[in-house]
């Protein structure tokens, strides 16, 4: 790798979650019975004409603004022609000349270094239908079925500049892109459902060169991890080819996840799409005022939010980064803090218990029942000493699953902290009587026997004893013997 640098550009397709398709009124719902969300327009029936869905324009502009792009006040649609049964009109309506958004960027962090990845442009287009083959490929299949429910679902394609230099940067870029778009709420961003798709263009060149060499396009990347691995593999492969005196071919390659390699699909003799102005759609004109209205609907974006958490809440940069990595998480955090809780304490709980349980159960934040109100209540109870921190974690786990009020849980399970001195003294006497060896050790100067005895007291009270008080009373009791 040392003599070469990689030049990587990513093309990210994002399905917009508008209610209806881009050029007709059909539902965009995922998972309906095949060919039920269709009409003459999205089936491309003879005589059908198209109408642009205004929400698509709004969503696309919103995404563009979130990614720091300029919005084109006049943009156009074009036709890209190719024959394939998933395209009902044998053409795709896309933006080839003047896309809706131009020239944005995202700042990523890799190994503690910040780096700017430029975004070349974002364009709107329609999705194709879905083919199912009875066989491996369309040419070898006995038969193929086509579902046009997805035909005409709105997409934006976010095309990065060739600024990415490694698989790790690619992954960081995708994570940042997904995170930012999540804040705009324009897409479900689910890679497994195809609402987020990524193709990678990879080439290599000697370090210091400014030239662009032949690139390959990698498809079938089903996770960010796959993007990273595929790029890393592809860079190594290209270096090997070049070092052996060969030439990198302009191929489309597919990522084989199980083998961890990219495989050539076809040599890419650049297809002639015969781009033509879409005659059924007049150019799309928007005003600067409209753009500002869309901008006003943008929420605070992750970078700004992160800085605010650092500056105003005093969170460590790491905490702020993790918490703002998801809009929902950041909102949960902010609401809890707004209820009067200490920022760092809330952050600790969220980054600790909350994320641990989310990951362990493989859940999305939207799927859990715990509310910021209950978390704030729980933190107050811990702070007041009604329960210990340790018990707090137990209660939290229950709240996480059931969505119950922490007070109710504490009452039901009898988890209130024991702070009654008389009751505790009695337990301490019993523990000391049961563990004379440890008492002797302590008195003989082995101070760490104290910890063992405290543990025994906690055990005897099922963890409910007020640990501070136990410490104090035990100390007193031992000193009396000395």
């Amino acid at each position, binding site marked *: 790798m040392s003599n070469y640098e990689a030049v990587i550009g990513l093309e990210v397709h994002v399905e917009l979650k508008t209610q209806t398709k881009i050029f007709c009124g059909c539902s965009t719902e995922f998972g309906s019975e095949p060919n039920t969300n269709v009409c*003459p327009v999205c089936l491309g029936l*003879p005589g059908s004409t*198209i*109408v642009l869905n205004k929400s698509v324009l709004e969503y696309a502009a919103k995404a563009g603004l979130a990614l720091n792009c300029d919005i084109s006040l006049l943009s156009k649609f074009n036709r890209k022609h190719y024959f394939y049964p998933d395209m*009902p*009109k044998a053409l795709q309506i896309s933006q080839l000349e003047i896309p809706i958004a131009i020239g944005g960027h995202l700042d990523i962090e890799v190994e503690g270094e910040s780096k700017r990845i430029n975004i070349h442009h974002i364009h709107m287009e329609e999705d194709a239908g879905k083919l199912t083959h009875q066989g491996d490929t369309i040419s070898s299949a006995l038969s193929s079925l086509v579902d046009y429910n997805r035909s005409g679902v709105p997409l934006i394609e976010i095309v990065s500049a060739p600024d990415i230099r490694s698989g790790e940067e690619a992954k960081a870029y995708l994570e940042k892109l997904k995170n930012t778009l999540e804040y705009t709420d324009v897409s479900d961003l689910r890679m497994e459902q195809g609402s987020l798709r990524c193709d990678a263009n990879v080439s290599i060149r000697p370090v210091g060169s400014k030239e662009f060499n032949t690139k390959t396009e990698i498809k079938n990347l089903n996770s960010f991890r796959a993007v990273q691995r595929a790029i890393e593999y592809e860079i190594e492969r290209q270096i090997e080819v070049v070092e052996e005196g060969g030439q990198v071919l302009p191929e489309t390659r597919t990522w084989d996840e199980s083998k961890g390699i990219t495989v050539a699909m076809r040599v890419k003799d650049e297809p002639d799409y015969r781009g033509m102005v879409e*005659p*059924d759609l*007049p150019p799309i004109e928007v005003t600067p005022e409209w753009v500002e209205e869309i901008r006003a609907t943008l929420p605070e974006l992750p970078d700004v939010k992160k800085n605010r958490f650092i500056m105003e809440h005093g969170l460590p940069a790491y905490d702020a980064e993790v918490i703002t990595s998801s809009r929902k998480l950041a909102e949960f955090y902010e609401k809890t803090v707004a209820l009067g809780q200490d920022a760092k304490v809330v952050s600790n709980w969220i980054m600790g218990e909350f994320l641990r349980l989310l990951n362990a159960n493989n859940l999305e934040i939207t799927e859990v029942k715990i509310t910021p109100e209950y978390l704030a209540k729980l933190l107050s109870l811990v702070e007041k000493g009604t329960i210990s921190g340790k018990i707090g974690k137990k209660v939290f786990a229950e709240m996480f699953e059931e969505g119950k009020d922490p007070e109710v849980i504490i009452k039901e399970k009898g988890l209130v902290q024991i702070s009654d001195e008389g009751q505790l003294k009695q337990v301490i006497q019993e523990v000391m009587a049961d563990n004379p060896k440890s008492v002797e050790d302590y008195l003989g100067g082995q101070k760490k026997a104290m910890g063992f005895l405290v543990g025994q007291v906690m055990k005897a009270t099922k963890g409910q004893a007020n640990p501070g008080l136990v410490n104090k009373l035990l100390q007193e009791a031992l000193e009396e013997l000395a």
Partner: protein
Amino acid sequence: MQLHEYTISELSSLISKKEISILELTQHMLGRIEKLDSELGCYISIVEDQAMEQAAKVQKMLDKGILTSPLTGIPMGIKDNICTEGILTSCGSKMLSNFVPPYNAHVVKKLYNSGSVLLGKLNMDEYAMGSSTESSYFKKTRNPWDTERVPGGSSGGSAAAVVAGEAIYSLGSDTGGSIRQPASFCGCVGLKPTYGLISRFGLVSYASSLDQIGPLTKTVTDCALVLNAIAGHDPMDLTSSRRIHPDYTKALINDVKGMKIGLPREFIDDSVEKNIRDAILNAVKVFTDLGAECVEISIPVMEYVVPTYYIIALAEASSNLARYDGVKFGYRASNPKDILDFCKRTRSEGFGTEVKRRILLGTYVLSSGYYDAYYKKALKARAIITREFNKAFEQCDIIIGPVSPTTAYKIGEKINDPIQMYMEDIFTVPVNIAGLPAMSIPCGLDNNSLPIGLQLLGKRFDEQTIIKTAYTFEQNTEFHNLRPNLNV
């Protein structure tokens, strides 16, 4: 006089006065079709049962006072590239010989709502590509004036049916003259409205930026009545204009005094048959005698209009016709080897020669390496041609000229000379390139007793001036009353 000889306005008055019933009229028209159409070949499909049911329904609504449109009860035919729910819409092609649309075109909905009765779907050149209706997959339509001759095209069935009394009026579509030229060959009134005046929703696209639906009628008055019924914005077609259209019958005024009528010298050069030139000059005299002023103008870009038109039209056609791959609708090849074979054979077997020629030419001009030299240049030429016509209208209120350099020719005479046929579109295509409205009205007969058409070109969205001028001509001449002798 028999019922099929009446105009819309005459029949409408007979119907509202209950002097005739809609059923009786419909029955008569179906009988007329039965008698004539095996010879003339105007219709691809005749919807007898639906027509009678519709007639009965419309009569009831009329009796209850629910329907009061001038088109209520008027039997009509529609060109077979305009979608009709539940009725074959073939575009004159084998490719769509089994295509029954699940929806109605916007104009069809409007006509149904006005109570007009559909008799059937009219023959046409395949996908509207042609000017003689000879490229129809189904049949040849014959010119009612001389059955050895073509009716013009591509709306040949629409024009012949109106003139032969097989429909009281009809709808056609005009991409480069497809309404005006057959209207001229058959001797009826044909209007190509301003681009955007009428919704194209449901019109099977040939060249989307040029296509426009329009009426074919016996008189200018009828033309205004049909135009009133079908014009107007449609939210389903973004290229349809939002402006509120006027009542076109208000423009039926017999007066051209003081009007400036432009006659481009390029429109009456030697390429135009002498009979036609004489008829046009005679029309000029009619107008000047009535107090109009004739202004001689020049449109030097005329030599570029045919190539510009064909590049744009065929580029769009190659795109619009890409969808016919046998997967979703229409003809499909049997026993394909694989998907490529399936697609290739479906298109090879489903399209006729002229359509294939145009798809190939259109694909060529859009291909990389040729795109700039042809398609892009044609778009520039289009802008220039549009500008020149707009400039010409600074000197006059209306432009007149011939529709075609010839009258109706013999069936088979030109079909093997596509270039010649393309060149004869010279006077009609600039109208589509510039998005203007234009009308063809009868203005005489040639030495073979074949109709000659006078073309009137207006400013964008100024159909009124065309209607007014044409109406005045009609009121002061007898050409619109000439009918072919059909021996029935």
